[in-house]
C-alpha cells in the first residue's frame, strides 16, 4: 500500500494540496481568532445592560 501511495501519479498532488490547504485554514482561523478578541472593558462602572450585551456578543466564544 505504502509504495502505491508514493508511486502513483496524482496521489502526491493530493497530499500536497491537502496539507497545504489544511494549514491555510488553520492560519485563517488564528487570524480570525485574534481579530475577534474583545476590546478592553471601559474603566467607568458599566451599567448592567452593557454587561449582558457584551456577554451576548462574546457568547459564542465561551461555548
Amino acid at each position: 500500500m505504502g509504495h502505491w501511495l508514493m508511486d502513483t501519479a496524482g496521489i502526491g498532488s493530493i497530499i500536497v494540496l491537502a496539507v497545504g490547504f489544511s494549514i491555510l485554514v488553520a492560519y485563517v482561523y488564528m487570524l480570525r481568532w485574534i481579530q475577534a478578541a474583545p476590546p478592553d472593558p471601559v474603566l467607568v462602572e458599566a451599567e448592567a445592560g452593557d454587561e449582558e450585551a457584551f456577554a451576548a456578543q462574546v457568547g459564542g466564544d465561551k461555548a
Partner: protein
Amino acid sequence: MSQPYRESELERAVLNPLRQTTMQFYLVLGVLGLVFLWGAASLIRQWLLGLGVTGLGRPVYWGIYLSNFVFFIGISHAGTLISAILRVTQAEWRRPITRVSEAITFFALVLGGLQIWIDMGRPERVLYPLIWGRYQSPFLWDFTCIGIYLLSSTLYLYLPMIPDLARMRDHMTDAPRWRRWLYQAMSLNWHGSHEQNRRLEKGIGIMAILIIPIAVSVHTVVSWVFGMTMQPMWHSTILGPYFVVGAIFSGIAMLFIFMTLIRKAWHLEKWIGAKQYNYLGLLLLVMSAFWGYFTLAEYLTTGYGSLVHEAHVIQAKLAGEYAPWFWAMVTCNLIFPFAILLWRRGRTPTGTFIAALCVAIGMWIERFTIVAPSLTRPSLGFERAIYAPTLTEVAITLGSVALFSLLFLLFFKIFPVVSVWEVEEGQVIEAVRRKAEELAYQTG
C-alpha cells in the same frame, strides 16, 4: 481624534521613509529595474528558444539555476533564525531587526520557487506536479515543505505587523487613499485590547515555535533533491544538516547586508545599534565555525576514502578546474569572517557588512561547487565534461537578485521597516529593568 497625535521619535524615524521618496530611492529603483528587465528578457528568450541558450549539456544537466534555487531558499532561513529562535529565547536585541529578516524570508522563498520554474524544460507545464504529482520524488517533498514554509512565513511576517498597521491606520491620515484603505483592511480592525494583545502574543509565540522545524525541514528537503541521487559527493548523509547550517549562515549574512543598507539609507542608526551588530556578528562567527566544521567533515571523509567516483570529484574540487572556486569559497566563508568578526572592533556595521558580503558570495560559490563538479564527472563517464555558463544564465541570476531587492524595497516603501510596537515594548521593559536595578542598588 482628541489632540493632534505627537509622534515619538521612533515613529518619526520609521514612518518617515513611507512618506516621502528621495531621489536616491528612485535611482536605486531604476537600476534594479533595469537589471531585472535584462534578466526577464533573457528568461523569455530562453523560454522561446529552449534551454540550449544556457551552457548546460550532457552530462552537466543542472548548473547555475539549481545553485540559485538552493541559494535563495538558503537565504530564507534568515527570518527563521532571528525572529523565531531569538524570540523564543527572549533575546531583547532582536526587536528592531525581526521584520527585516522576516521580509527576507518571504521574498527569498518566492525567488527560490521561481528558480525551479526557470530551470524547467517545459515551463508551461509548471502545474503538472500539482496535477500528476508523485510523492516518491524529492521535488514533491520540496513543493510541500516550501509551500508550508511560504504560508507560515507569510503569517509570521504579517502577525507582528498588525499593531503597526493599526497605528498607521489611525495616525497616517495624510497618506493617499489606497494606502489608508490598505492599512485599514490589513489591520483586522485591531483595537489593542489586552485580550487582543494576549492573543497576538500567543499567536506569534506559536508561530515562532512552529516555524523553526518547518524551516529546517525545507532546507533538508532541498538538499535531498541532491542527496537522493547516486551522484558522487551528492549521495551523502551530511547533505541535510550541511545545507541547513549553510542556509542559516547565508541567511544571517543576507540579513546583515540588507539591515545595514536599510539602516544607512533610512538613518535608523539610533534603533539598529551596536548591540545588534555585536551579537549578530558573534552569531555569524558561530555559524561560520559550524559551516567550517561540516565542510571539513564532508571533504575529509570523502577525501580519505578511496571510492573511485568520489575521488575524481574531490580531486576536481581541491586541485582540478574547480579548485579556484573551492578555495575562494573557503576564504570567503571561513577566513574573512574570522579575521573580521573575531574582534569587537570588527563587529561594527561596516565590518560586519564586508564579512556578510563575503559570506553571501562564498555561500553562492559553495552551492555551485556542490552542483557542478559532481555532474562533470559521471560515474560511467569516460571523459571530464566542461561546464561554461553563458550570459543568459548570468543575466537571469542577476535579474533574480535584482527582483529580490526590488520586492524588498517596495515592501518597505509601504510597510514600516522596524516593528515599532515591539521596540516600544522593549523600551518599557528596559526602563522597568533599569528601575529595578536602581532599587536593588539602593537597597543593596
